[in-house]
C-alpha cells in the first residue's frame, strides 16, 4: 500500500505532474469538440450530395440539361474524398496536414482540429448516407404523392427517421474520434495520451500514468455514451 502511495505521489503530485494530465485532457476535448463539428458539417454535405445523386440520377438524366452533369461531378468528388480519407491512416493524414499542407502554421492545435475533422467527415458521410438509403422507397413515394417536393420530403419525412436510425452508429464514430485524437502527440501537441507519455518518460514508471490516462478516456466515453443514450430515448418518445 505504501509503495502504491509513493508511486502515486511520484507520478502525479511531484512537480505538479497532474497539471499535465489536466492540460492534456483540455487539449483532447478541444480537438474532439471542434473536429466533431467539422466532421458533421462535412458529413452532412457529402451525404446530401451523394444520396441526392443516387436517388435522382434517373429522372435528371431523362430531363437532360446541365443539372445532371453538375451533380455527377460533385458526386465523383465526394466519392474521391471518402476513398482517400478512409484509405489512409489518420496519423499519416495528421502529419501531412502539419508538415506539408499547413507547414506555415505555427500552432499545431488548429491543424489537428482540422485534420481530425476532415477524417471524421468521411466516416460521418457514409453513416448518414447509409441512414438515408435505408429508409424505405415507399416513404419517398408517399411524400411525393402528397405533393411535397424532393427537399420537403427529405426535410419532413426522411431526415427525422434517418437521425434516429444513425444515432447509435454516430455515437460509435464520436467515441472513435475521441480516442483517435490520442495520436495528436505526433505533431507536438500535448494531449491526454501524450501527457501520460510525458509522465512516463520522467518517472519511468509505466503503471500509474497509463492506468490514469486509460481511466480518464473511459470516463469520457461513458459520459458521451450516456448523453447519446438520453437523446436516443427522447427521440423514441414520439413513437407508438
Amino acid at each position, binding site marked *: 500500500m505504501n509503495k502504491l502511495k509513493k508511486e502515486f505521489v511520484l507520478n502525479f503530485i511531484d512537480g505538479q505532474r497532474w497539471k499535465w494530465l489536466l492540460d492534456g485532457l483540455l487539449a483532447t476535448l478541444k480537438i474532439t469538440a471542434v473536429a466533431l463539428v467539422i466532421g458533421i458539417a462535412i458529413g452532412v454535405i457529402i451525404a446530401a450530395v451523394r444520396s441526392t445523386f443516387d436517388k435522382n440520377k434517373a429522372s435528371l438524366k431523362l430531363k437532360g440539361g446541365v443539372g445532371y452533369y453538375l451533380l455527377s461531378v460533385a458526386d465523383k468528388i465526394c466519392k474521391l474524398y471518402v476513398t482517400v480519407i478512409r484509405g489512409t491512416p489518420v496519423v499519416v493524414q495528421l502529419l501531412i496536414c502539419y*508538415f506539408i499542407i499547413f*507547414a*506555415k*502554421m*505555427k500552432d*499545431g492545435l488548429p491543424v489537428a482540429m482540422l485534420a481530425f475533422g476532415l477524417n471524421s467527415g468521411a466516416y460521418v458521410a457514409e453513416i448518414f448516407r447509409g441512414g438515408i438509403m435505408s429508409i424505405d422507397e415507399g416513404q419517398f413515394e408517399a411524400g411525393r404523392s402528397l405533393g411535397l417536393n424532393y427537399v420537403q420530403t427529405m426535410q419532413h419525412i426522411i431526415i427525422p427517421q434517418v437521425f434516429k436510425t444513425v444515432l447509435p452508429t454516430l455515437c460509435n464514430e464520436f467515441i472513435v474520434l475521441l480516442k483517435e485524437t490520442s495520436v495528436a*502527440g*505526433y*505533431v*507536438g501537441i*500535448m494531449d491526454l495520451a*501524450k501527457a501520460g*507519455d*510525458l509522465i*512516463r*518518460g*520522467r518517472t*519511468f*514508471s*509505466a503503471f500509474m500514468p497509463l492506468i490514469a490516462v486509460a481511466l480518464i478516456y473511459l470516463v469520457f466515453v461513458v459520459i458521451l455514451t450516456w448523453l447519446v443514450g438520453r437523446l436516443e430515448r427522447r427521440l423514441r418518445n414520439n413513437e407508438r
Partner: protein
Amino acid sequence: MKKVIGIILALAMLMTAALLVTSCGKEEGKLVMATNAAFPPYEFKDGDKIVGIDAETAEATEGEAGVEPEIDDTEFGSIIGGVQTGKYDIGMAGMTVTDERKESVNFSNTYAKAKQVVIVPADSEIESFEEFYTEFDADGNPAAVADGVKIGVQQDTTGDIYSSDDPAKWGFGEDNVIRYKTGADAVQALLAGKVTCVIIDNEPAKSFVAANEGLKILDGAYADEDYAIAVGKDNEELLKNINDALAKLTESGKLDEIVAKYIPAE
C-alpha cells in the same frame, strides 16, 4: 479425406502453439538491448538492420562477455521503464546519466561524451541560446524568456528535460517547449518555421544539418553530458561485466575505432 485434413490442421495448431511458447521465453546467451533507432549516428536503421555507434559498441561489449545482443527498437521514453521491469536487459540510446534516471536503473561507466547543441535556420541572426532570455537576475541567471520563442525537442531526451525547466535553471519553461516523437520531426518543424530552434545532442544535430539545407548549429554547448548504458537495478553481475568489457575496449582502442567509423574527425 476429412480425417487427413483434420490431422494436418491439428498438427499445424500444435506447431504454432509450440512456436509461440518458445518465442516467449528469453533465449539463453542473448541480451535484449532497447534503443530508439532514430538518433544518428548513435543508432539508426540501415535497411532492416539497426546500426550506429551504440549498436556496434553493444556488439563489441557483449562479444567480450560472450553473449550476443538482440536490438529492440522502441520509443526513447519507454526504454528506462522497460529496463526497470526486466523487459529489456540493457538500454543504450545515447542516454545521458541523470539523477532522476539513476533512481530507476543503474548506469555503466561512460562510453561517450556528448553535448546538447542548438540548431537554428542558417539565415538566423541568433548567435547564442542566451539571446532567448530577455531578463537576468542579480546572479546572472535568466529570469524571463522572449515572447514567441518555441524550443523544439525530442520528447523525454535530456534536451527536453533541461529546456522544460524554469528559466532560473537555464530552461525555457514548460509552455515554450514543443515535444516531437523523433529528433527528425523536430528538425522538420524547424524547417517549416514552427519552432525557433531545436535543442538536441551534438552528433545527431550534425547529421540533421548535413541532411537538410538551410540549417546551422550554434557555437558552444547548451549542456555537457556523458552517455552510459542503462542496466536493471537487480542485475549487478551484468553491470560489472559491461564495465569490465568497456574498460577492455577503451584500452584496446576499439571504442575509438567505432566512434571514428561513424564520426569523421573534424
